[in-house]
């Protein structure tokens, strides 16, 4: 019996048992669609997370006081210690000491109440250097950013985030206006370009005030910490390739200036945005695996469905198998017939499943608000898996059919 004849009669058999074939196909297509959608959601989530973190500033390293890996002695928790100074920031700015670092922005941050007329607004105020703008990958919408002269002269000037400016001034132009920051009058010299509406993380970045670090030191820091200590130092590496070099330069330089011999006892912590990216990515990878395994289970169930149907089919068609054998069908003919039937069911289910997956990719994001991106490899893989399931779970029923002796088969009623 040629392959073409086998195919023809397999298609016929699938048609003869329409309802049964339909149910099998539905079982498989649910599994395939589930796999595609879950993989798509996972991939979409990874892309979204990566782009959100990217928007926080690329090639960014953050040095915070305190240590998360401290083993000896009593130390403050992350961010609470007072071990980072402007001298540290200055040392790291030296290109001879740290060639991989392009810019350094020391930060003295506080939550302050801003007042304009009768309007008050509480937000994060960063005391920082002119490098802040490029380190955070921000730009100006209007006015100008802090310059070196402002820092040298402890100028009472402030740059506002777009959201902060809107809260205080509404539609009015904030540039040149004077607001009170912790009762100290400061002139608004610029407004940052908004990062965009959307997630909470992004709008937070639009709700901020930036003042010269010297001004912050003068008016706020002493009261808060009793010294010229920094909350953090933001560091931008030359590029993402030298990120780990920059990381090592920071560690080396700060250990030296802090006269600490063992890295285990470091009184500071360096974190990379990249490591947040990879952590977030690994979270969504885990999510993908989780969803994927649920989908895989549904595929498995679909496969067992195929096996079940094929076994029922073999039992039900015992007489047919016996007759075919009496008329000259060999074991191979019978096995092939059942395998091809199972593969057809698998392929049909797979094809419809892939089609539904593609539709889901287009329709679902509008409903659930998450982007779904199904990689081509998942589409092709799903089809292969579907045929594989048909064949894999069809092998046992087909072997059983092939093994039937024509005699037993014909005797059965």
């Amino acid at each position, binding site marked *: 019996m040629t392959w073409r004849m086998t195919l023809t009669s397999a298609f016929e058999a699938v048609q*003869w048992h329409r309802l049964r074939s339909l149910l099998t196909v539905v079982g498989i297509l649910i599994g395939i669609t589930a796999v595609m959608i879950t993989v798509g959601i996972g991939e979409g989530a990874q892309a979204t997370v990566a782009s959100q973190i990217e928007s926080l500033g690329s090639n960014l390293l953050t040095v915070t006081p305190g240590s998360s890996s401290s083993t000896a002695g009593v130390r403050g928790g992350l961010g609470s210690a007072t071990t980072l100074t402007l001298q540290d920031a200055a040392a790291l700015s030296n290109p001879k000491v740290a060639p991989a670092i392009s810019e350094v922005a020391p930060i003295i941050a506080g939550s302050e109440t801003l007042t304009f007329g009768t309007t008050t607004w509480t937000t994060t105020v960063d005391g920082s250097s002119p490098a802040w703008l490029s380190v955070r990958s921000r730009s100006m919408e209007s006015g100008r950013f802090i310059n070196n002269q402002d820092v040298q002269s402890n100028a009472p000037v402030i740059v506002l985030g777009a959201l902060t400016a809107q809260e205080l001034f509404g539609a009015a132009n904030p540039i040149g206006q004077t607001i009170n920051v912790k009762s100290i009058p400061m002139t608004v010299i610029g407004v940052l370009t908004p990062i965009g509406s959307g997630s909470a993380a992004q709008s937070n970045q639009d709700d901020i005030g930036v003042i010269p670090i010297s001004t912050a030191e003068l008016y706020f820091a002493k009261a808060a910490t009793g010294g010229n200590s920094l909350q953090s130092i933001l560091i931008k590496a030359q590029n993402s390739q030298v990120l780990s070099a920059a990381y090592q330069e920071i560690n080396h330089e700060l250990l030296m200036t802090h006269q600490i011999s063992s890295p285990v006892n470091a009184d500071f912590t360096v974190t990379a945005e990249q490591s947040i990216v990879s952590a977030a990515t690994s979270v969504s990878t885990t999510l993908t695996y989780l969803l994927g395994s649920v989908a895989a289970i549904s595929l498995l169930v679909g496969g067992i469905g195929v096996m079940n149907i094929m076994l029922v089919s073999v039992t039900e068609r015992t007489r047919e198998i016996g*007759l075919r054998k*009496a*008329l000259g069908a*060999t*074991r191979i003919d019978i096995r092939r017939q059942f395998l091809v039937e199972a593969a057809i069911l698998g392929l049909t289910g797979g094809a419809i499943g892939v089609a539904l997956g593609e539709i889901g990719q287009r329709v679902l994001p509008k409903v659930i608000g998450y982007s779904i991106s199904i990689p081509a490899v998942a589409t092709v893989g799903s089809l292969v898996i579907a045929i594989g399931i048909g064949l894999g779970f069809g092998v046992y029923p087909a072997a059983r059919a092939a093994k039937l*002796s*024509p005699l037993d088969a014909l005797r059965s009623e």
Partner: protein
Amino acid sequence: MVVLVDSATPLVELKNVSKSYKLGSVTVEALRGVTCTINEGEYVAIIGPSGSGKSTLMHLIGCLDSPSGGEYNLASESVAELDDFELADIRNRRIGFIFQQFNLLAPMSALRNVELPLLYAGIDKKERRDRATAALARVGLGERSNHKPTELSGGQQQRVAIARALVVNPSLLLADEPTGNLDSVAAREVLEIFDELNKSGRTIVVITHDDEVARHADRIIHIRDGKLQSAS
């Protein structure tokens, strides 16, 4: 389709054939040393009560089963030594089966049912169609080739089955209670076809418990308790 009749040429040769089954812990001796020869062109009825071993004998002759002991030659070829694939080939080319239950495939038209053995013989579509149409015409169903089995009467269904058995031009037509499910009119029609086929040279073996059916044959072999009673 005329086969030269030479009564001296043996088609089926059984020598001291035995067959035993295991039913649970009990061994059933279905055949105990059966020896007989059926020549080409003969019309033989094997008759015996139920449980006599006549069905077992038919399955052995039809190469649906192999003997536990003894020798079986079909057209001078020793069948006992053939493997599964060679047996399938013998069944396909040499033997035309006719069953009590007709065993037609319900979703297929009469024509497609008759084509089925040719499918396994690897014959191309055009020739399949021509030969199946000819075989159906031979049993008087040329007009009904596109009917499904459920649209045909019992007698017509059995005639389709006969066409299916004939289509490969087999050496031996093997019928197991071919009239068992038919009324007397349909049964007579079927037996008349057998008579015609035998007259044109076809070797026919009919297994039955019905004397009326057996009377059509040239020779009657009685079987009882797995042994032949007479080979007159």
